């Protein structure tokens, strides 16, 4: 795979002083893929992106772009472009000058670069704003100018560092769809950094989940959600409903660590062949289209001695869902055995700290 991969990272590490920001990352990103790096802040995902762009030098390891080792090359000698979190548009240039900057420094003739910049602005539906200054644009417009400025160079890979982080929710949703469409149209490999799991699930072909400078799991959104391989991934992508220790033994009926997604748990009416347990509703969280029921189980406490709870997601369909609160009510929960995700394997392994040290 490494011959054809757009990006290959081999045992990539980066430390800042005593802080190990990135710790032995191996990754292959295929040509034309929409690839997301997902993780909490400080998990090393942005540092990996900055090393691919060339802004940071790795402490060890190699970076291959289309099979070529670019580890020691400066940013301007790599065929990648970046969309920055704060857009980093040049305030002293007009929008069109910003977009044609990459062509200008590559000595593309004036007429040619103007035409291509105008086309790129058209792609992001900002053709009419070319003469404005970045300061006169809204956040969403700046975001699109930044995208056009990167895309006009037709890079092999486009790196996006939380590009939607500064936008409000509605605009974010719109831009997500737009990004996906643009990526499909131009066919460039997108590497997208985000801490928003929903965004990653919506956009990506594949996702790498980062924690503590290491990749926890690389998988498609569906695989990641339905089959997380560790408690961290289960918890970071969606609500994990983790069951451990005595609670797991009582509820699942086996030793180990398990997770059941909230929407897979039935409340009140339990289907045929389901395993059931009982508990008391502690909290009902109204989400508009659905409700979250947090249920304290009758089961013994979990592995760390905490009260065992399960969160249940249920669509707002039934009359009883519309009652102000079912708090304190005794309920029966049920789920099908195939919806129990077994995380015991990852828990049984030693902590990855020792593994790579």
């Amino acid at each position, binding site marked *: 795979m490494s011959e054809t991969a757009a990006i290959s990272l081999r045992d990539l590490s980066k430390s800042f002083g005593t802080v190990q920001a990135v710790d032995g990352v191996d990754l292959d990103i295929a040509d034309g893929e929409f690839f997301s790096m997902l993780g909490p802040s400080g998990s090393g995902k942005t540092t990996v992106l900055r090393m691919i*762009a*060339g*802004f940071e030098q790795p402490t060890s390891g190699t970076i291959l772009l289309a099979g070529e080792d670019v580890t020691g090359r*400066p*940013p*301007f000698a790599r065929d*990648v*472009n*970046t969309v*920055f979190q*704060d857009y*980093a*548009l*040049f*305030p*002293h240039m007009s929008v069109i000058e910003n977009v044609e*900057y*990459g062509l*200008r*420094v*590559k000595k593309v003739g004036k007429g040619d670069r103007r035409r291509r910049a105008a086309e790129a602005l058209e792609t992001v539906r900002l053709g009419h704003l070319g003469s404005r200054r970045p*300061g006169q644009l809204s956040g969403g417009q700046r975001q699109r100018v930044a995208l056009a*400025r*990167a895309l006009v*160079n037709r890079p092999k890979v486009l790196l996006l560092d939380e590009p939607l982080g500064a936008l409000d929710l509605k605009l974010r949703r719109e831009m997500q769809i737009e990004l996906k469409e643009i990526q499909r149209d131009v066919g460039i490999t997108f590497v997208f950094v985000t801490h928003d799991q929903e965004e990653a699930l919506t956009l990506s072909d594949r996702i790498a989940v980062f924690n503590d400078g290491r990749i926890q799991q690389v998988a498609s959104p569906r695989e990641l959600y339905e089959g997380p391989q560790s408690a961290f991934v289960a918890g970071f992508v969606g609500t994990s409903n983790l069951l451990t220790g005595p609670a797991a033994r009582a509820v699942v009926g086996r030793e180990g660590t398990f997770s059941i997604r909230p929407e897979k748990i039935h409340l009140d009416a339990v289907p045929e062949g389901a395993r059931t347990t009982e508990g008391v509703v502690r909290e009902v969280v109204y989400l508009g289209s659905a409700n979250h029921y947090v249920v304290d189980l009758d089961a013994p406490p979990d592995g760390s001695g905490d009260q065992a709870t399960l969160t249940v997601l249920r669509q707002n369909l039934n009359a009883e869902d519309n009652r102000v609160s079912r708090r304190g009510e005794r309920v029966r929960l049920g789920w099908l055995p195939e919806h129990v995700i077994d995380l015991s394997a990852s828990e049984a392994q030693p902590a990855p700290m020792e593994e790579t040290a």
Partner: protein
Amino acid sequence: MTLSRNARLLLAAVTGLVLLVIYLPLGLVLVNSFNTSTSFTWPPSGFTTKWWDAAWHSAGARDALALSLEVAAFATVISLVLGTMAALALQRYRFFGRDAVSLLIILPIALPGIVTGIALQNAFTKILGISLSFWTIVIAHATFCIVTVFNNAVARLRRVGGNLEEASMDLGAGTFTTFRLVTFPMLRSALLAGGLLSFALSFDEIIVTTFTAGAGSQTLPLWIFENMFRPNQAPVVNVVAAALIVLSIVPIWLAQRLSVDDEGLPTAAP
């Protein structure tokens, strides 16, 4: 913040008094430059422009003015180049001794002029064996003029951040292209403000100049100081002083305008 009526009146009175103490003597100089009396009796016995005429034709004053302008121009150019380079190095790169170098660059502006003057004179004549000349004044002035450029540039670089430069490199521009197309345009107004201040600093410097000026090099402040106690030259000196007051307003006003940039955020003053 709202202030009571009394507090506002008090503040206005204090402000007025302070401004009066500063500007009344300056106004007197201006008025006296037209006073017919050579001993500046008050009230003026009559008004004349003959002192302005005499000053205009005074070879000593003209030479001194020309020399001062030259010194200030050279000192400012040196400061702009070195100050910008130092600011970029200290603001964009991390290296051992960074804070110490930063302190050492700023220190000369705080040092008493007499100390700088003596130290430089010693270094030039005793250690380096150079005779004092026009260039020794320029170098001496540059030591403290750098600070104003440096401070302005550092403040601007800190505010702009390194992101724009990273974006430029990401888009394929090398280090020098990035400086030319991105860093310098961002710095331009800060450098102009710093340069004007450094020009003004050099132009009116007298203490360090006294110690580092060569025999034939008399800057305007030195000329004024030498001539102000000669009774027949006093009115001419007064005219030169009056002219300088008017001229100094220009660079300071410009510097103040320029250090407030597009977004209306003032950069740090030196």
